[in-house]
């Protein structure tokens, strides 16, 4: 039997923009076991509720993570609205959907780029990020912020997107989709990409479900869990079918995200077509008293904000369970039998967002 050695991976590692640490137990080049340890970005922001009023905490919620920031704010706001029985105006629900899907586009393109970088496909990395910049331009144009938008608030949204801007966005979607399909074509059909990804880090349908995985990671194994189906914001009006793949390998996880890019473009297009006129927010009166588990589908999967108030301006508890935390068990199961050189690709395939995970 070959000797076992432990190789530390991270926290500072060339393919990781964020620090996570794995102890990889190897037999020669093959991973036998992987033990994650986190905590490099743990800030303890759940306890900031002691110091921020419930309406101000949206800003903190946005900064749980700089990639899925809008959806954290959305999840938090929806939770408070549910506790306080606030009915959000229709236009706000549509605008929230538009910003959510635009954020998802930017997040998925970001991931596709990083994934290409992880595979050593530098050109594809640069192309994905070039395309992502046009999404960021839209976000900046409509909200003022590139990565942190600050447009969602308890009771609605903070600003409108004018009819002219919406029309311009709509016109830009066609050429954008064409570019995305060009890009997606490389990810889905390129021989070298397939060679690198197919059959790597396979998790079956039952395992993926039992491990509690979420988001594209679980959908790539054939489990159709996508909270947009529950119809929060405007998804109920727009109709939505989750993107599902069945192979459960790195290639399938990549394919789910590529196809979700197309789906998001489609959702934005329909949301712009159907958006009603009307007010943007309702006035928030009173304080939250009660509890709710608010759930939203982020680019990485289901996020949960458990919020609990006791009728004062400060919540008594905010517990945030982010998708990457739920995906750590499946990652630990994916790594054994991978080659050391494939570890970065497998780790990236769950789209780890460490800032989210550790809060």
């Amino acid at each position: 039997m070959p000797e076992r050695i432990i190789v530390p991976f991270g926290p500072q590692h060339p393919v990781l923009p964020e620090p996570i640490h794995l102890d990889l137990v190897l037999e020669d080049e093959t991973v036998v076991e992987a033990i994650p340890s986190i905590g490099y970005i743990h800030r303890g922001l759940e306890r900031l509720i002691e110091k921020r009023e419930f309406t101000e905490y949206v800003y903190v919620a946005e900064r749980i993570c700089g990639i899925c920031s809008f959806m954290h704010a959305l999840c938090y706001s929806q939770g408070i609205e549910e506790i306080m029985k606030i009915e959000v105006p229709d236009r706000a629900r549509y605008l929230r959907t538009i910003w959510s899907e635009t954020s998802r586009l930017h997040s998925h393109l970001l991931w596709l780029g990083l994934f290409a970088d992880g595979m050593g496909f530098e050109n594809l990395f640069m192309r994905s990020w070039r395309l992502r910049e046009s999404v960021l331009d839209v976000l900046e144009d409509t909200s003022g912020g590139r990565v942190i938008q600050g447009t969602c608030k308890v009771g609605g949204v903070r600003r409108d997107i004018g009819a002219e801007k919406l029309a311009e966005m709509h016109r830009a979607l066609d050429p954008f989709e064409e570019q995305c399909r060009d890009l997606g074509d490389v990810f889905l059909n390129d021989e070298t990409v397939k060679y690198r990804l197919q059959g790597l880090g396979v998790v079956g349908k039952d395992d993926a479900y039992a491990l509690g995985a979420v988001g594209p990671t679980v959908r790539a194994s054939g489990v159709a869990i996508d909270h947009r189906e529950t119809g929060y914001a405007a998804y109920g009006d727009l109709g939505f079918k989750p993107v599902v793949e069945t192979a459960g390998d790195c290639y399938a996880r990549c394919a789910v995200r590529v196809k979700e890019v197309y789906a998001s473009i489609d959702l934005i297009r329909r949301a712009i077509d159907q958006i009603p006129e009307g007010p943007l927010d309702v006035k928030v009166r009173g304080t939250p008293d009660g509890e709710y588990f608010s759930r939203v589908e982020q680019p990485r999967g289901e996020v949960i904000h458990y919020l609990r108030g006791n009728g004062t301006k400060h919540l008594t508890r905010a517990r945030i369970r982010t998708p990457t935390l739920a995906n750590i068990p499946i990652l630990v199961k994916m790594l054994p039998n991978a080659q050391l050189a494939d570890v970065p690709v497998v780790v990236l395939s769950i789209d780890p967002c460490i800032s989210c995970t550790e809060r």
Partner: protein
Amino acid sequence: MTVNAEQTTISVAPEDLMREVEGLQAGGYRLVQIGCTDIGGAYEVNYSFDRDYQYRNLRLTLGPDTEIPSISGIYWGAFVYENEMHDLFGIPVVGINIDFKGTFIKTAEKYPFSVTRRGGDQCRNA
């Protein structure tokens, strides 16, 4: 708004926890999260499960330093939440399949969410 999918919460006694969890697992539920709340001198622990967007909570109420059994034998992935419970709240969980023994999340302040922690504001900057 259709956000409000059904959310049911059932209070269970610590000794019934394993049986209830096994029942849910057999019923095809997946583990969504385990989260703790400080309810003034005691903890409330929520075990959340989901099947087809139906959300079920098992709720334990525990005094400080009460040991609870690990459900990682039933849901393998539970170790993430159970280690977190131990590291942030100081709740001793017995029999976790991958027990980090307090090194999963290392914090400047030991058990920062513990009900027995000193005072509220311990900001080192303020």
